[in-house]
């Protein structure tokens, strides 16, 4: 019986030991004043964990078949990818903070303004680090769409990875003249009932933000910090517009697609005549893979659609901060950005400034494979609007549910 006692004791001890992660103190502050050579030295041979959205084959292909082998070859870094976006990242950081874990599971993350706002709120990001990266000098920080994320100055706490604009997607054969303003949309809804909807996610809420800007009188109506009064006034108009036309929405407005990907499928199978999304509508790869018809086109709303950047951040408890910086610096290199810009691949707009690039790289960027179907960022430029403060999005989420979905 004594033996059983020992076995039980051993089992308990191993549970306790396994539940406590090794705590290796790392002098993060020292890293902030280190030279790039020292950072490179620290990064050599590390394993870096990167948490990112893995919902696109083009993105996964770029990361798994280009970035991972490249950083291994160039810097002997093992880049491990794990799936997760906004809420998952925030949950992870909150959980680890709660448990007081000094050496987290993830080193670097792919985020946008909303997650940036949340991570700043819970002090989940490490930095500023962008100024330490040699390739940061090539970034076009004069562009306010790059240096400001949801009305918050980036301040070196996240590195811009690509810039893009929201676009409306339609089939030019089925719908020769798509709506470009709220009154036109209202007319369209009545003429084509059941062919438009709002996805109950980030994408749908972004569309609602541009609608709110239009209801506010112009592209800049939501600029500046969050204004409760303005929000109440404009959102009231927005809900009454949606609720007045709800019966002409997809499924008569009784439900809304949970995510953009579902809406894209509904567009692809012909249930919807209009879809929308970031990356200028994400048209190129969907036409190339055969999901969307070749007659698919994209455009910006008359009052404008939102343009923003997405970013790479390092978590406050990242065990391999130097390794993460090395990987981020590589992702910002002309080589990696050019590869990412290939219209047949990830099809992203670079954050690098053409004026700051060496002539040979500039030429390569100009010669890069161009889109055949989707609109370019340049074409939508005149209709670009800034991302409003994150509180607008948070409030829209809540009120869209209360005032529209549950209504």
């Amino acid at each position, binding site marked *: *019986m004594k033996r*059983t006692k020992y076995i039980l004791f051993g089992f308990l001890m191993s549970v306790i030991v396994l539940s406590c992660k090794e705590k290796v103190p790392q002098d993060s502050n020292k890293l902030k004043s280190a030279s790039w050579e020292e950072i490179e030295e620290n990064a050599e041979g590390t394993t870096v964990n990167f948490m990112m959205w893995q919902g696109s084959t083009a993105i996964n292909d770029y990361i798994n078949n280009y970035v991972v082998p490249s950083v291994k070859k160039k810097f002997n870094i093992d880049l491990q990818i794990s799936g997760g976006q906004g809420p998952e990242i925030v949950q992870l950081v909150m959980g680890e*903070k*709660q448990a007081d874990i000094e050496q987290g599971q993830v080193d670097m993350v792919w985020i946008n303004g909303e997650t940036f706002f949340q991570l700043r709120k819970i002090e989940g990001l490490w930095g500023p680090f962008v100024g330490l990266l040699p390739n940061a000098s090539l970034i076009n920080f004069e562009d306010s769409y790059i240096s400001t994320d949801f009305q918050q100055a980036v301040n070196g706490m996240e590195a811009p990875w690509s810039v893009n604009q929201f676009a409306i997607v339609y089939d030019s054969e089925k719908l020769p003249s798509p709506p470009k303003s709220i009154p036109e949309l209202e007319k369209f809804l009545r003429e084509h009932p059941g062919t438009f909807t709002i996805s109950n996610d980030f994408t749908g809420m972004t569309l609602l933000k541009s609608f709110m800007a239009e209801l506010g009188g112009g592209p800049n109506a939501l600029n500046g910090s969050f204004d409760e009064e303005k929000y109440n006034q404009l959102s009231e108009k927005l809900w009454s517009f949606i609720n007045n036309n709800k019966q002409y929405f997809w499924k008569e407005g009784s*439900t809304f697609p949970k995510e953009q990907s579902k809406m894209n499928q509904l567009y692809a199978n012909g*249930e919807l005549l209009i879809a929308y999304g970031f990356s200028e509508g994400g048209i190129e790869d969907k036409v190339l893979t055969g999901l969307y018809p070749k007659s698919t086109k994209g455009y910006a709303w008359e009052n404008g659609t939102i343009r923003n950047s997405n970013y790479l951040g390092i978590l406050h408890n990242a065990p391999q901060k130097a390794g993460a910086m090395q990987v981020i610096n590589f992702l910002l290199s002309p080589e990696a950005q050019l590869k990412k810009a290939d219209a047949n691949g990830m099809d992203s707009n670079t954050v690098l400034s053409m004026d700051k690039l060496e002539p040979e790289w500039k030429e390569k960027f100009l010669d890069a494979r161009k889109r055949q179907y989707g609109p370019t960022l340049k074409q939508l430029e005149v209709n670009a609007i800034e991302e409003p403060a994150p509180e607008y999005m*948070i409030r829209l989420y809540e009120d869209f549910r209360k005032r529209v979905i*549950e209504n």
Partner: protein
Amino acid sequence: MKIKKPNIGIVLFLLIGVVPFAAAFIYALLYSFGVIGVANNGFTLQFWESVLASGTFFKSFGYSFIIAFVAVTSSVGGALWITLKFRKQLEKQFLSFIIYLPLAIPGIVTGFFTFQLFSKGGFFARISYKLGLITKASEFPDLVNDGLAFGIILSFITMIMPFFVLLFLNVYKNERVEELSVLAQSLGADANQITRKVFLPILIQKTWVLIVLYFIFLLGAYEVPLILGQESPQMLSVLIIQEIKQYDLDKISEGYVVAVLYTLIVSAAAIVLFLPKRKRVYAN
């Protein structure tokens, strides 16, 4: 102190079965009162008040209850009918294999499969279009993400009816229902009476615990309603995850309130349902 064998079993059960559950429940409870949570500022009742005042939880609970009830009743009813009518055929190898097959398919796959078959752009819609029954996708009836939860209920039935068929077949054999039926017949019972007085009481009585457990399992199902449900009302697990993952960090605790409420209700129901029965068994 000597550790006796039965005690080791209890210790292991406590360690593996009770401790993690209790720890998770306490964590959720503390979170729901704002005691823990990075974005929380200490004890508050505001999350409980807001959840109870909004009524979303009760709507969602009622919705989940009805769906689980309809799915379990239909599955049990269907399985009883199949057992009664096709018992002999089901003993053949090929058919028994067909019955086993759905049990090997995970819920999430069943959900996707139902979506592919019954959505407005799915298999049946396409066939209807080819046959000229509909002229555009929107004319096809609303069978997934619909208000009546047709898709969810259908998936649940597909998932659990085979299990009940197998269960009833086994009980039928083990409880010698065949022999009892013959006996009843020789005593003058007609086919209808045999079904009502012998077949149904024995099968239901021997399996009711499992039926109730399946009902509880469906009440908390996640993947199928996530794929096939609508945005409001939602089934409970979908609602909980949505609240916990929401962008407003100050309101994450509301998700934990829903989780705690759900656990309390189900635990209370389980105690009420199972305890008196056990006592009676022991009393006998």
